[in-house]
């Protein structure tokens, strides 16, 4: 159990770091988008590279930030029933959910998106638009993001198993599901 929790701890740290990167992508994409508009209007200059980098950063924030969002337990739920059952039942729903819903899907998607990235990388795929960007960096975000979710999924699973087995991890074992705000 101890080893599993050490694993969870390490993965939390990794997701944290990627979460920071994803945060910055928000600001960067926003600044670039506003900059694009100003420059195009002001000096009639722009390029598809600067347009494409916006959605590259968007893909980055979504994929690299998803595991951190999971760690914060902020992926939204239909909590019609979930909100009214006992703490233990909630733990069980989460455990079954990770084992049967989330992990198989995310493992499958990691496995599927890797060759998708590799094909683009090997062929040095570019953009169909004049002056656009290489495609592989943004395609790499897919397997990386899904793999991070797999890692974090196991981490969350182990935390809940530990709590269920009575391991005392303090009140901050994992974050209760709640709003991401305030």
């Amino acid at each position, binding site marked *: 159990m101890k080893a599993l929790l050490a694993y969870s701890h390490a993965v939390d740290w990794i997701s944290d770091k990627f979460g920071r990167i994803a945060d910055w992508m928000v600001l960067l994409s926003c600044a670039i988008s506003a900059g694009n508009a100003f420059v195009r209007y002001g000096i009639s200059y722009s390029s598809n590279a600067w347009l494409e980098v916006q959605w590259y950063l968007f893909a980055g924030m979504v994929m690299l930030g998803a595991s951190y969002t999971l760690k914060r337990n*902020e992926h939204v*739920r239909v909590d019609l029933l979930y909100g009214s059952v006992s703490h233990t039942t909630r733990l069980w729903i989460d455990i079954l959910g990770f084992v049967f819903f989330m992990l198989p899907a995310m493992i499958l998607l990691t496995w599927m998106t890797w060759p998708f990235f590799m094909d683009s990388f090997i062929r040095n795929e570019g953009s169909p638009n004049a002056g656009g960007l290489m495609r592989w960096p943004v395609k790499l975000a897919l397997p990386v993001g899904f793999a991070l979710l797999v890692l974090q999924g196991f981490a969350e699973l182990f935390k809940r198993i530990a709590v269920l087995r009575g391991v005392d991890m303090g009140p901050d074992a994992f974050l209760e599901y709640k709003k991401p705000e305030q």
Partner: protein
Amino acid sequence: MTLDMMPPLMFGGLVLFLLLGFPAAFSLSAVGLFFGFLSIEMGFFNEAFLGNLPLRVFGILSNDLLLAIPFFTLMGAILERCGLAEDLLEGTGQLFGKVPGGLAYAVILVGAVLGAITGTVAASVIAMGMISLPIMMRYGYDMRIATGVIAASGTITQVIPPSLVLIVLGDQLGKSVGDMYAGAIGPSFLQIILFMLFILGVSIFQPHKVPPLPPEALQPRGWPLYWRVLKGMVPSIVLIFLVLGTIFLGLATPTEAGAMGTVGAVFLAVAQGTYSWKLLREAMGNTMRITSMVIFILIGATVFSLVFQGVDGSHWIEHLLSHLPGGKTGFLIFVNIFVFFLAFFLDFFEIAFIVVPMLAPVAANMGIDLVWFGVLLCINLQTSFMHPPFGFALFYLRGIAPRTVLTRDIYWGAVPWLFLQLALVAIVIVWPESVTYFIDHGPQVDPSTVTIDVPLPEAPDDDAVPVFR
């Protein structure tokens, strides 16, 4: 088990999986994969078919229209944190101070203005919710009215141009986006009026649900108040005009306008002296998590709809549609009821892609104006964001509402607004001019009188002798 049993089973499975309460994004992908593997087992398609998933996920991530989500969320988060948005609503609230329902009117109006800026429901609902829910809670609004008016006002954006739904519908109906936008103007005003009338009704019959500001919150009338209200409102109004203005001046595309608004919000926060590095840092983090959460719902949904396509879900729906009653009005009523119920299970993308292409030729044959038809569907599809328990607007609202807000209240809060939207559908059916009046029919020249006569290259020089070698 036969192929045509799969689509209804998938709908059933969707409800069951989601109700368990595991995060919606992963439940959606799980229900898709569950039926996917079942279909492979039954031989409806092979494993290779699921290999289309990476392409679909990449399609979502490379859809630059979705950039509006982080941009407008960041703008909302900054406004909310530096107290600007609160000032706007407080200001409007103070003006309507003594009127019961004053804050709700303010929310509807702000929702409409926001709707004229942004085209995606997620961006609008999230920004509205972050700004106005805490204020309404503070002044003792009934929780169901508060969540309902926010979700509904947040979804107005998809009827008011610019709108992703209208773009997709126009594309599917083969009508120009410009016509769709023009046609939607009338109904969007009608909707705002309808929403306000509802609040008026509530304030008359159940005034305790929409209390006026308490006397201690109400500032004495007079110049000091007007000045404070003005000072609170001006920056936000400037910001809204900055966003709309940059589109209007041709400085920014509607998507970029969201980023311009964020830059403006930062400047306003600095000007107000409320800006801090911590504020921006928090707003970034918040925006990242909301964007990731929203897009992962779309990723989950795409797993579901790929399998739905694979089991011939579109044929199943086509079959359901084959028993349509005759007559224009009968057809319209039936179609709208059908779409209303379908919207419980499918989101507007799927309805637009699967159902609309089957309906369009039938409608065209009946002589129904396709722009009118599209706007009708657009209003109806607005309900698909509001259906408890799976409406995406309700998910988004749940995602940002404080814990003390019960999910039950969000669901029940949505119900009256569903009926208001249906009422609007009925109004637009009996009064087509509310749509067609605003469509620019262009200069009315009879095409048959037009002669196309472009200049020809000059005739060859008569003396030129062809040379053969």
